């Protein structure tokens, strides 16, 4: 089937629609601990490779060398890349969903500006020094409840103090006395961030051993997130989506990256208690999508609109939520990219509102400077 925007709005099946408007404010509850996991897909995830639209001959022609020869079925209008096996299993249990034709409001096509903005949530690269997730946690009072599964502390989670990270190196720490002397030196020199960081090192309940592969990190994170007093937020990174050459199709570079994402959700699912997974939301984030058309290197160039994967027990239902813009030339952004019809920040603000039990409007104001975002909580997530 070849769908355009108008048809799609009329005929979509499992796919829900996007309507403007605010949902009811949510408020703090005393319910079970809820977790938010954000997986950053760096390099520009090709939403049309991950969740291809069905039956669009023109699209297939433009990607003759990188079309998928087999797919998993999602809806009457969209398929799924076969590398996303765990995601499909979750989808089948109403624990997986996607938002399509979405992106942060950034059209510059630079990875580095784009990644800065996807993490900061701002509009001018490098202007904001904190991340939207960090500011959201601060608004929700979640100090010391963030865990980054990465070696540096991602910008995304900065803005709230005492975040931890885990990327084991496999060695023993020096003695407590020595660490205390260093801590005192940091204090004497008024080195707040270093002091705070060392305090975490000295007090945390994490082993320094283990693998730093994403599946293993996910397993450890899953255990931590399941603890009643464990972190409530985790952040992962998957690199390598920038496939200018040899993107591959069912197998290949992009498929490997999608598999890496899939292994993270698999690791989380396996390691978490069922109660914890039921109260967890896993969302993805990328800087932009990729061009509709393949290039002569059997890759794709930097684009605009992409897709967001949602997984976990807090997903409302299996759906591809979209206001599909169409893939005709005139419907593309600058004649070459999938358009973005949903501000991805609406999804993230709604996710934080749901998981942190904080009023959407408060997050909109405190995290995204009161910008015109839509509350999608009711459509995408369980209250």
């Amino acid at each position, binding site marked *: 089937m070849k769908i355009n925007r108008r048809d799609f709005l009329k005929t979509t099946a499992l796919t829900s629609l996007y309507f403007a408007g605010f949902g009811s404010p949510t408020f703090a509850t005393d319910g079970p601990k809820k977790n938010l996991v954000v997986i950053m897909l760096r390099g520009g995830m090709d939403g049309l490779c991950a969740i291809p639209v069905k039956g669009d001959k023109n699209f297939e022609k433009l990607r003759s060398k990188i079309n998928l020869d087999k797919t998993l079925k999602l809806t009457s209008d969209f398929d799924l890349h076969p590398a996303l096996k765990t995601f499909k299993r979750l989808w089948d249990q109403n624990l997986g969903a996607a938002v399509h034709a979405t992106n942060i409001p950034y059209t510059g096509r630079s990875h580095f500006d784009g990644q800065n903005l996807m993490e900061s949530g701002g509009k001018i690269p490098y202007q904001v020094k904190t991340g939207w997730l960090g500011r959201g946690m601060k608004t929700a009072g979640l100090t010391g409840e963030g865990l980054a599964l990465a070696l540096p502390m991602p910008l995304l989670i900065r803005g709230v103090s005492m975040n931890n990270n885990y990327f084991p190196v496999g060695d023993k720490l020096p003695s407590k006395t020595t660490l205390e002397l260093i801590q005192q030196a940091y204090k004497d020199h008024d080195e707040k961030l270093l002091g705070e*960081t060392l305090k975490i090192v000295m007090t945390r309940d994490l082993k320094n051993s283990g693998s730093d592969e994403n599946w293993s990190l996910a397993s450890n994170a899953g255990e931590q997130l399941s603890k009643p007093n464990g972190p409530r937020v985790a952040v992962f990174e998957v690199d390598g989506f920038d496939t200018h050459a040899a993107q591959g199709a069912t197998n290949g570079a992009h498929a490997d990256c999608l598999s890496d994402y899939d292994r993270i959700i698999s690791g989380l699912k396996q390691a978490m208690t069922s109660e914890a997974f039921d109260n967890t939301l896993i969302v993805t984030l990328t800087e932009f999508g990729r061009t509709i058309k393949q290039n002569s290197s059997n890759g794709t160039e930097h684009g605009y609109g992409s897709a967001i994967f949602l997984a976990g027990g807090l997903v409302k239902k299996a759906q591809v939520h979209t206001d599909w813009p169409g893939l005709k030339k005139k419907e593309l952004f600058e004649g070459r990219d999938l358009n973005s019809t949903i501000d991805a920040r609406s999804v993230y603000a709604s996710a934080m509102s749901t998981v942190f039990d904080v009023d959407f409007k408060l997050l909109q104001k405190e995290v995204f400077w009161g910008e015109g975002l839509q509350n999608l909580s009711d459509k995408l997530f369980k209250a």
Partner: protein
Amino acid sequence: MKNFFRKVAFGIGPNEDVPSDPLKWALDQLDEVPNLSWKGKIYSEKELRKHYRDYVYGDRKVLRKKYKDNKTLYKTHKNILRHKTGQKFWESLEISIRHNEGINSKNPVLAKLWMFWGNFFAISHKDYLANYSTGPYQREIIRPNLNQSFEKMVYDVTTSWAMIHHLDNSESAGPKSVTASEEWRRRKKEPATINENHARELLELHTVSPKAGYTQEDVIQLAYIMTGWQQRWSKKHLETGNVWFNSEYHQLGKKNVLGKEYKKGKKGLANVIRDLVNHPNCRDFVAERLCRYLITDEPTKEMKQPIIDAFKKSDGYLPEIHKAALKVTFEFNKKYKKFQTPENWFIQVAKIGDLQWPPSKEIMNAYELGFKPTRKQRFPEKILRRLGHHPYRAKQPNGWSDHSEDWISPELLIRRLFFADRSYSFIKPENDNKEFIEKIVNNNFDKPDLILDYMFKNMVHRKSERNVLLFNHPEFLKA
């Protein structure tokens, strides 16, 4: 003031005198690019690229066919091929050469700037570039240009084999080129299209930066100018042939980048680079990056202006740009302390602590092709990887960050604690005494008594923990 020696280099070793005029000491190191101080074997980029060729050819054209039905044998023979081509050794040798410049050469300031430009024009982790090519690229393309113009540096980088491979320019073909109308393209349904990757990074990372306000059309037009610059592909050498200008891939017709017109042909690239490096945003970008590397995360206009002026006045002559940057660094030395990146910190630990580092030339010369490198021969690559700052394995083409906060996290701090502890095992036996520590602290700190008191007033569980204290003291982490 003594922090200046670490800020612009790697500190003062125990057998060196503290220069009485630090700025002159630094400025005197910039005009010439001397031979590398490493006394062991050094291999040319072409020799190492031949090993790259042997590996990819052997794997792709021989082993994959020969063992297509036997995964175990394929893996075994692929491993043999890795060692036959030195895949696990070269980057450790290159890091040894690199660190030796910082530790044992007479031009450590130049070495620190070499590292800056290597990261400015980063080759990130892709294919086997780190294993065979990034080290020699930094030695043969970046380093000889440290006393040339920025324009020449950009041109040499842009047309280097490593960068062409890194940013896919060989794959770029003009839609209006000779090759575009070739019969095989119609038959195989492979129309000629550009690959924008290299053009975009030439604008964004290597010259004017996004602040110049270029458009998508500028990127496309620059990619057109760059079409034809590619690796000379052959059945024998695959993608490892020398870079050349293949006019058959070149987009015909005039191009327009940032409002300037360029004729078709090979010279287009040199012409557009000349204009890009003379763009005001390029000068500002270079000044910003140098200040951020040397002085502070947030360079001010006051800091950048002298560097911008020197760039303009000297027509981008790098020694003059470097001198201006060092003068500004000296001027602001007291006010700003820069958190040192892990590799910079590690080289400082090695130099100031007079460690047995890098591995000796005897150890590295003993490597034999075809054999697995020894543990010591692989130390450099392994240690930097574990520190989280391997200079040839940045994750993306923008290289490693110069922002302090990107290097502060519990895990990154843990690594400095571990490696400071471990540094004790690299101490020369004759230095394992308090007098030595007093000497190095005196050489490198303005208030040595405070540091020594901090190190010695309390008992430590193991002697190695004194290294942990010294190398994790806030005055050591920053310079």
